[in-house]
């Protein structure tokens, strides 16, 4: 059982949509995050704010999407600071091995780095525009909303197996598009 019972309760409330709690935590966690980032990385105020908002957003998204679940292996505030560290370290392009805390190692693969997402977002938006319907909606239902094929099938009134086949056909179509359209080359955006 986690030793962070209170924080486990916080995660549960956030997952259930308690936005007032999130806003309170956003204020409460800020001072320690700022102190740590300035002391460890000598960040300026604007940079700390950007990192904090990114880290807090990732924490929220991870809870909402079930990537951060109870029992926690660290306090929630430590988790946010841990994300901030990773963001900063990736930005500095330093050896990540100096981040020796085990929970941070676990964290690293659990989220997309906000400062790196602008390009990815542009790329995926272009893909969806090019591929058009019904693939765009199908992929968004599958990857943005996280729906199972059964739900997608019910939504567009087709068999589950058909939804599954259409979905993978769309993936194949994307591969072809990338191959034929230089503007969709992911290396231009990532």
């Amino acid at each position, binding site marked *: 059982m986690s030793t962070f019972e209170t924080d486990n309760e916080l995660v549960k409330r956030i997952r259930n949509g308690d936005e007032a709690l999130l806003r309170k935590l956003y204020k409460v966690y800020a001072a320690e995050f700022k102190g740590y980032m300035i002391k460890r990385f000598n960040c300026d105020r604007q940079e700390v704010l950007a990192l904090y908002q990114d880290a807090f957003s990732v924490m929220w998204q991870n809870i909402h999407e079930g990537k951060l679940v109870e029992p926690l292996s660290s306090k929630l505030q430590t988790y946010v600071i841990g994300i901030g560290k990773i963001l900063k370290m990736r930005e500095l392009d330093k050896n990540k091995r100096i981040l020796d805390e085990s929970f941070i190692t676990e964290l690293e693969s659990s989220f997309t780095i906000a400062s790196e997402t602008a390009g990815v*977002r542009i790329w*995926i938006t272009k893909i969806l525009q090019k591929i058009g319907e019904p693939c765009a909606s199908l*992929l968004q239902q599958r990857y943005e909303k996280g729906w199972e094929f059964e739900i997608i099938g019910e939504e567009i009134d087709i068999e589950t197996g058909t939804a599954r086949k259409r979905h993978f056909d769309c993936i194949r179509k994307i591969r072809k598009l990338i191959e034929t359209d230089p503007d969709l080359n992911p290396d231009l955006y*990532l």
Partner: protein
Amino acid sequence: MNENKNYLLDEDYELIELYLAQNPDVEVVNRVETRMNVDPDFEQAVLLQKKLLDGFAALRYKPYKEKVASWGDPMQGSVLQLYGRYAVAASIVLAIGIFGTWYYSRVQYSDTALAQKYFTAGEVLSWSSGATMSAQQQGSSEAGLDAFQKGNYPDAIELLKNVDTTSGFYAEAVFKLGLSHFKVGDYDAAIAGLQSSWDIIRQSDKVPAHLTLVCAYIAAGKSDTEAFQQLIINIPAEATEVYKRKMEEIQAELKHPLRVWVR
């Protein structure tokens, strides 16, 4: 990339999805990574799928980030909140300090407090000297003096105000009538009684009567009057040096800044 990529089956793409999901099964990981090592096209499909998932994760991330950004700068807020808490604490301390000083001044320097302070000191200093006659010494015939001795000042007032001027202890009676008025807080009556009989009183009880009158003036809020100023400088010749210093002390305390504030 080449045409071979199209040989990948739905099952292959499904396997890639499982591999890239949160906490993939060990068997899935082994299968995918083994195949990636021997099948470049499969590896390319895995990498592309990872990019697609990252792209959609970025799309999902956007509303969270926008919402959090709309909450503003909590760093600034936290500093203000910290200062705010200090400001509230300082205000409370300041308020307690002001109230405490006011209360202390009120207790120490109000007209009544000042009069009571010197009146009480005067009781010890002066009229314990035995200069006056007691009711017992007069055979307990005068009930008013007896009531005064017992501390029953309302009865003493009623009885002493009717004492016959021909009585042998009339002087003591009018003096103790003044004291009784003072004791019950009727300072104006004490002043009027003592002043109207001043010539009689001063024959036997000059110093204690003077002190009583001074204190009655202060308690009645009449320390600014000309009569009081005359009284406090015309100290009876019989007064001791200690008594004279007390009068100077009273004059100094009447001018104290805290007394001026609480008045």
